[in-house]
């Protein structure tokens, strides 16, 4: 639990936060400029803006990993001020839940199917909380330093891939450069000029000397790198080639000639004898980091694209790991501009996220108000439905059905600490539900497994049964059916009910009036299992 004191320190004394996020508003305007220009050019009329309730729910899910609480939803609805949306985005991005939620988001995107390592998650959380720039995170994941227990948490990406250089190469390429190079291993990409075998093995060469160093008696296990080692490969034409250090851009890195320093040799001998680790004179991995950051565009655009895809529902380049010359971004100029802006502004993740969430395209509604066919997804004229991740859903179900006690209206550092604790408790209570829920994927599919779980498993029944001050209990105690409907809809859907819903609710309660507690329980069930709850819309 390193996070706590760090949290209070940073939040208490970070004067640059408002200034930094000011840039977000300007950036948002720039995004709007590019997108609107594009819409004009292709002759597409975008959907209406989403209403306040939808906007708040969307933003809270995306930035805090949960639905808004009833109080938050109502407070937002009642707030008459003009800049409330932008202000809310900032508040969310600045809050502790952002780093908790985005740690999960980054964990999945970096670690893929090896996500879930507690140490790595904690490192991500702390980094996001401290506004660590993306290039620094990249550096720490690939290079360290890993001299303290706290720092060593970032080696989990490499550490889990040391047995397989191909996996290491491809996962690094996907996570940080937006490029899936697996096919380029066997032959040159027939259509895409930039991916040849040379590129694959060139990238691989940055990793081939990386291995697991086990000290004397296997005590000092760590990510190590050797002094020497080359990759040789056979081309499709049967020719044997030695791989050069080459980045995905095609840039070749010259290695310095090996040093025949007597002192160095002596050091190596000693280290070998003692069983201690001695880093190599020239680190290929370090060179990769340097080259990638110098080249800049692949690294920066990949993060922009990834964040855009997460928040808007589809990458500017789609799919997000196919960023190559034959796959142009959907909105001309925007990706490049944002990439440069990101690099020029210290790879500030929060700033970019805030900017995207303040843009017009992010705030579009998800239902199409005009006649005729729906616009193509790459036109970004309509917000897509996005299923909640299992964790988002579980946490939101717990929040929606629980008591109303959380009050986020404290100030400053106290509020931040309270929010963090609140979120942690939600996650704790939601833990048992996660494994039963359908995961997100490129094409979301609902299984009967989840439906059976939600319908029949005791864990869910426990949440919706009227108990203490939870939602069902409070509903049962609400004598007036209209008020009951209001309370239920605000708590679960984070909005006010429409007329039809008031009458449905009334009808429901009246029909089941013999047992009001059960009627409320089942009303809550129907709300949390309804499609509106299941999707981010």
């Amino acid at each position: 639990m390193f996070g706590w004191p760090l949290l209070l320190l940073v939040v208490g004394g970070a004067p640059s936060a408002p200034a930094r996020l000011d840039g977000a508003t300007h950036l948002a305007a720039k995004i709007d400029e590019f997108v609107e220009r594009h819409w004009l050019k292709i002759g597409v009329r975008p959907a209406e803006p989403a209403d306040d309730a939808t906007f708040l729910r969307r933003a809270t899910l995306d930035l805090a990993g949960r639905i808004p609480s009833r109080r938050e939803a109502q407070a937002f609805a009642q707030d008459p001020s003009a800049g409330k949306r932008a202000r809310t985005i900032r508040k969310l991005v600045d809050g502790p839940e952002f780093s908790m939620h985005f740690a999960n988001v980054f964990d999945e995107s970096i670690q893929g199917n090896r996500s879930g390592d507690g140490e790595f998650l904690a490192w991500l959380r702390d980094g996001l909380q401290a506004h660590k720039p993306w290039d620094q995170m990249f550096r720490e994941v690939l290079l360290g330093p890993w001299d303290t227990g706290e720092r060593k948490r970032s080696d989990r990406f490499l550490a889990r891939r040391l047995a397989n250089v191909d996996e290491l190469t491809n996962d690094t390429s996907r996570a940080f450069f937006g490029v899936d190079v697996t096919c380029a291993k066997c032959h040159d990409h027939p259509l895409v000029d930039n991916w040849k075998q040379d590129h694959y093995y060139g990238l691989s060469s940055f990793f081939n000397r990386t291995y697991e160093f086990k000290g004397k008696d296997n005590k000092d296990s760590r990510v190590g790198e050797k002094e020497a080692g080359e990759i040789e490969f056979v081309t499709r034409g049967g020719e044997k080639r030695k791989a050069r250090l080459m980045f995905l851009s095609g840039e070749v890195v010259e290695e310095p000639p090996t040093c025949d320093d007597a002192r160095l040799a002596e050091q190596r001998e000693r280290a070998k004898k003692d069983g201690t680790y001695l880093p190599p004179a020239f680190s290929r991995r370090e060179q990769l980091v340097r080259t990638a950051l110098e080249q800049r565009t692949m690294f920066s655009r990949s993060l922009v694209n990834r964040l855009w895809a997460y928040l808007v529902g589809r990458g500017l380049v789609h799919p997000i790991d196919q960023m190559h010359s034959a796959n142009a971004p959907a909105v001309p100029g925007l990706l490049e501009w944002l990439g440069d802006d990101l690099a020029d502004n210290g790879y500030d993740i929060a700033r970019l996220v805030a900017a995207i969430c303040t843009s017009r395209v992010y705030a579009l509604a998800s239902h199409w108000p005009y006649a005729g066919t729906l616009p193509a997804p790459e036109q970004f004229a309509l917000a897509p439905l996005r299923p909640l991740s299992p964790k988002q859903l579980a946490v939101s179900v717990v929040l929606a059905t629980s008591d109303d006690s959380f009050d986020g209206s404290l100030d400053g550092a106290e509020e931040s600490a309270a929010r963090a604790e609140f979120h942690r408790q939600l996650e704790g209570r939601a833990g048992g539900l996660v494994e039963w829920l359908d995961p997100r994927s490129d094409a979301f599919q609902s299984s009967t497994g989840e439906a059976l779980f939600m319908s029949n498993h005791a864990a869910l029944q426990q949440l919706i049964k009227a108990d203490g001050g939870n939602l069902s209990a409070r509903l049962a105690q609400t004598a007036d059916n209209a008020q009951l409907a209001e309370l239920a809809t605000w708590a679960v859907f984070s909005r006010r009910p429409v007329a039809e819903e008031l009458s449905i609710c009334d009808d429901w309660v009246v029909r089941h009036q013999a047992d009001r507690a059960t009627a409320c329980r089942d009303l809550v069930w129907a709300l949390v299992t309804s499609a509106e709850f299941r999707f981010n819309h």
Partner: protein
Amino acid sequence: MNCHDCNASRRRFLYDAGAAALGVGLGGLAAPYDPLWADELRRRNKHVLLLWLAGGSSQLETWDPKPGRPTGGPFRAIPTVATGIHISELLPKMAKIMDRTAIVRSLDTRIADHGTAAELMETGRTREPRLVYPDLGTVIAKELAQRDAQVPDYVSLYLATEGHRRPNPGFLGGRYAAMHLNRSLKPENIDRPEGVSEGDHADREHLREYLSERFNRSREAAEVKGYNSAYARVRGLMRSDTIFDLEQEPAEVRDRYGRTDFGEHALIARRLIEAGVPMVKVARAWWDSHTDNFESHRELVTELDQIMSTLLLDLEARGLLSSTLVVTLSEFGRTPDINKDVGRDHFASAWSFSLSGCGVRGGSVHGKTDDDGRTVAEGKAGPGDVLATIYKAVGVDPTMHYEVGPRPVPLAPEESAPIETVLA
């Protein structure tokens, strides 16, 4: 990393920016097949029962014995009612009903490690980085499922811990995902929870459905339709729990199948088929006899003989065999050469599988291995061909394509073809 699939048509790389928006939903994929034909299929009510012999069963101790050869081992070959066909003496009951079964002896599938080979045989191809293929059971479930079925489309049983695999629906997604039982014969979450009456349970689902359809009124989103359809099937699935209850069978029937785990699972499979489930996979683990191969196959094959023959005759007696394809398949076979631990190791160069029932030319054999069983001599077949044969046997066109985004994906890989010799 096995990349020989990259040697594919250019079409694969034309899969561009629009590729992964799959838009799969209840209404089915926008696949270019004849909807009338699909309805016809459904009306015919076919089933596939896959007996997955997990761990690699020995072809030399089952369908392709080599008695008297140094690789043959101690088990003899016996004649069957199918002229000219001999199988291992460990399958005497199957020998008597061999006219219902066809054998393919010439599988050459190259991959001999459990996980990769299992995925290969389940999907017909090696994995691709960006496309997760569905297992054949999910495809069958999709193609043969009845529209308003009140029973599961696909039930999979794997109740050992070794080599446990859960069927992967791949790009076909959760809609046709298997109901998978690996802890007990009781499907999970199938009982109404405490404190919720039958009436409450039904009522609240109606409310849920109503609210969800309202939400989708202005959207017509496929994901929402899919979500609602999952819930629509819950009550039917809950009622199907009686199918798993073996107490409903007479003791005589239970004894015939045997009171072993495999026997009970096979009996449940028959009940599922009878109830209309189109796809059932029963795994019998674990055949990996690196040591003491003869003793373990004596045990396993004798059991298989009892259960498979009982199953086929039982299905036949109930008029179901002509509409049910029963397949025995492993991830690979076993080495002809016997190792120093009196065992056989993994072997994918020349091995066998069997098909019985629907669409099968009983009593036929496709392919030959050499005298010692080390290589395929005639009729080489690969994993794609296995799939193509299974699909064709139940009337599913293996050349049919699914649209995965804009990319057409054939059910069986392009180079593959159904093994006509064993098809009726």
